[in-house]
């Protein structure tokens, strides 16, 4: 746990209430594109915004849902489904999205990027 905390650089993105439940937004942190989702239960998840199958930066525009109890987002291009918890692609074990830690401080949403 401490490992992640010490190696992460936090970037403030926007107020948390800018995020609509079950719909994503894209954020640009340096030159990294991040897709951020606020779920029905209030939790927030951040994964890479670039769809590994098409190369297009569109993950934030996918439909949010769940598969076998795991919260997911489906790529809007070729529809592969990814876990929002760890970025794993549930349709192709060899592929995954990077996944980033998030935190909320003073109503502001922060995303952590590796140093």
């Amino acid at each position, binding site marked *: 746990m401490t490992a992640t905390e010490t190696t992460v650089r936090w970037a403030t993105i926007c107020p948390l209430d800018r995020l609509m439940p079950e*719909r994503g937004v894209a*954020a640009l942190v340096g030159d990294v594109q991040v897709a951020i989702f606020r779920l029905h239960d209030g939790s927030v998840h951040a994964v890479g915004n670039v769809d590994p199958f*098409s190369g297009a930066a569109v993950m934030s525009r996918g*439909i949010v849902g*769940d598969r076998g109890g795991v919260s*997911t987002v489906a790529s809007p291009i070729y529809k592969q489904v990814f876990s929002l918890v760890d970025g794993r692609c549930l349709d192709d074990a060899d592929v995954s999205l990077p996944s980033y830690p998030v935190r909320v401080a003073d109503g502001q949403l922060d995303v952590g990027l590796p140093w």
Partner: protein
Amino acid sequence: MLELVVIGNGMVGHRLVQALCDRDSAGTWHITVLGEETRPAYDRVALSSYVDGVSAEDLTLPSLTVDLHLGDPAVAIDRDTRRITTETGRVLPYDALVLATGSVPFVPPVPGRDLPGCFVYRTLDDLDAIKAAAADAVARPGAGRRSAVVVGGGLLGLEAARALRSLGLSPQVVEIAPRLMPVQVDEGGGALLRRLVETEELQVRCGVSVNGIAEDRGRLVATLSDGVELDADLVVFSAGIRPADALARAAGLPVGERGGVLVDNRCRTSDEHVWAIGEVAALEGRTYGLVAPGYAMAEVVADRLLGGPATMTPEELDMSTQLKMLGVDVASFGDAQATTPGALEVVVNDPVAGTYAKLVISDDARTLLGGVLVGDASKYAALRPLVGSPLPADPVALIAPGGVELGADALPDSAQICSCNSVTKGAIVHAIGDGADTVAALKSCTRAGTSCGSCVPLLKKLLIDSGVQVSKALCEHFAQSRAELFEIVAGSGIRTFSELVSRFGQGRGCDICKPAVASILASLGTGHVHDGEQATLQDTNDHFLANLQRNGTYSVVPRLPGGEVSPAQLITIGEVARDFGLYTKITGGQRIDMFGARVEQLPAIWRRLVDAGFESGHAYGKSLRTVKSCVGTTWCRYGVQDSVGLAVALELRYRGLRAPHKFKSGVSGCARECAEARSKDFGIIATEEGWNLYVGGNGGFTPRHAELLASDLDTETLVKLIDRYLMFYIRTADRLQRTAPWIESLDGGLDHLRAVVVEDSLGICADLEAAMEQHVGSYADEWRGVLEDEEKLARFVSFVNAPDTPDPLVQTREERGQRVPVALGLPGVGA
């Protein structure tokens, strides 16, 4: 490890390597494959689909982990030292060598056969060359349609002709035999086949040959044996194949009388280290030009290389074929030519219906030996596996219209269901017993149905016969079908996804059920698609009210009802496209598409369009797209009704209507049908008396012509029938089901539909009409709705923390004077 070299990376060589990799768990063999073509093995059987836009990647067979050298053919075999030399000078030692070099097209030795514009039809490279030549020909100035000559009217020639036709040429097929497909089909079948394939764009000449080809003013002229001269932009030879056995001949391996490397019942040549499989092999002297026998040979050799006892005989090889994609069903199976001594033939020929069926049976009339089906091959899947088995019913009844329907239970366990991959009924029943409960599961565990697909209907039957309940559940969140959910939503008054899923489903939904529920809610008129929770259900197209393109940008399509557009509006579109750098293209449905808009540009673009009087064209939704029209009585000399006026009225009436699938319409002003209304979900053709209404026409994967629902209608009745038809479709179709398969799925088909919407047999017409009135009355332009609502507008930003920064991954370049996307790299996949 022992060294195996496979020469040839075609379908059969690939199958051998696959079978060996699957089974060689002990790691006995190290495999090297040499391929002459520069591409990895692909599905040659499906080659023709390449001209319809199926990509080379789609045709590529699964890649295997072996040493693969592409574009480097073997040029010599030294059998004494057991070494192969390749063109680039590679030298490969082997313990076992498999020849899988396939065949080469046979080009009859006519003068002029090497002229530019002459092609063969065998590889993807051949098709690339043909496509380029056809595109050149079509683009060439000059009046009239561009034409091609196809030399050979067999299976391949007809496929090539069809491909040329879809490339925009009018092919003429020249066949030396007195009938088409002389190898597979008998005289009666051939005559009917010719009648069915021949159209204005595809002509057939049988009983003549091509004597020579000459160049004439930049085109070609083919001279036939009867003196006729045919003009052509290109000539395609498909006059047969010859085994690619040159390498084997040079190495001193014995070949058959008519070519092909001689092999025994293990597929071994006279040299115990050398094997031959596929089209290059001559099993007991005979070669096979189909993939199924080649696959069977590959399996035998894989088994042998691992010390197994497999053998094969010509009798076990399946020579059945089905002609693909000419719009005409043809199938031949087993001993179609009745060459078995004493064989009897039973023929049912119906020239009016355009069908011909023949069964070949044994002299005691007990065993099915083979058959031919022309015009309707729907019985192929059930009959072919019966070859060699006792007849389950009277042979005439088996092929007569309305005769015996064969169930899968009539088949013995040994019957081959999938001949491409030699899968028996026994194997499939076994897999079902092991838990494979869908066609997809059967495909992945038995490989049945994965090649030509003709056995898929039989797979379904076997599933049903085994008592497997084919699930109608929409997805893991809803056990109901779409039609059931529609009734639940309509009847229960529930208007949010959350309530629906907590009361009637489970979990939080997915990309299958959410858009389906969104569509149901939209058909029931629940306000703007972005209101409240509904916004979270929309897929990206409906979320941004634009069509997502492959690089993450969107296309913008304003509605042009009936295709009408004023000069001022045209200028606005031009200005918007210019100012935002959008690529413009006229669509097939009489619209103007503007491509390449980024999310954050959409509101500004639409503000200008809305100000100029445009509204959303719904090109993004599962909804009414276009009502195409001709010019009708307004301008046309032939028009008998005002097709433009009707098209505009219909398009305005049904705009914004959400349905299980997108749907389209067309209106033609007379029977000349310039609007192609019969290829639409509903099409209208003017008559002297009024309008004819056609339903269930579809483009897409399985194109279908619409069928007549009612004729000579006045406008009011016409609109009423369309209202009912569309609402009935919206309420009862499955998710993503187009109108044609929906009508087919109704018990009673078109007749049932007519009973419901014309005769009101269910007493629901008033209801359906009221639902449509409600839609028409509550329509509002979706884009205007967004522009007037700050909260909705706030969603159209590129990055939540940098709203106006464009997506840096979207890059464009110029092509033919317009901006097009630079193809994106694929980070992290496929390595």
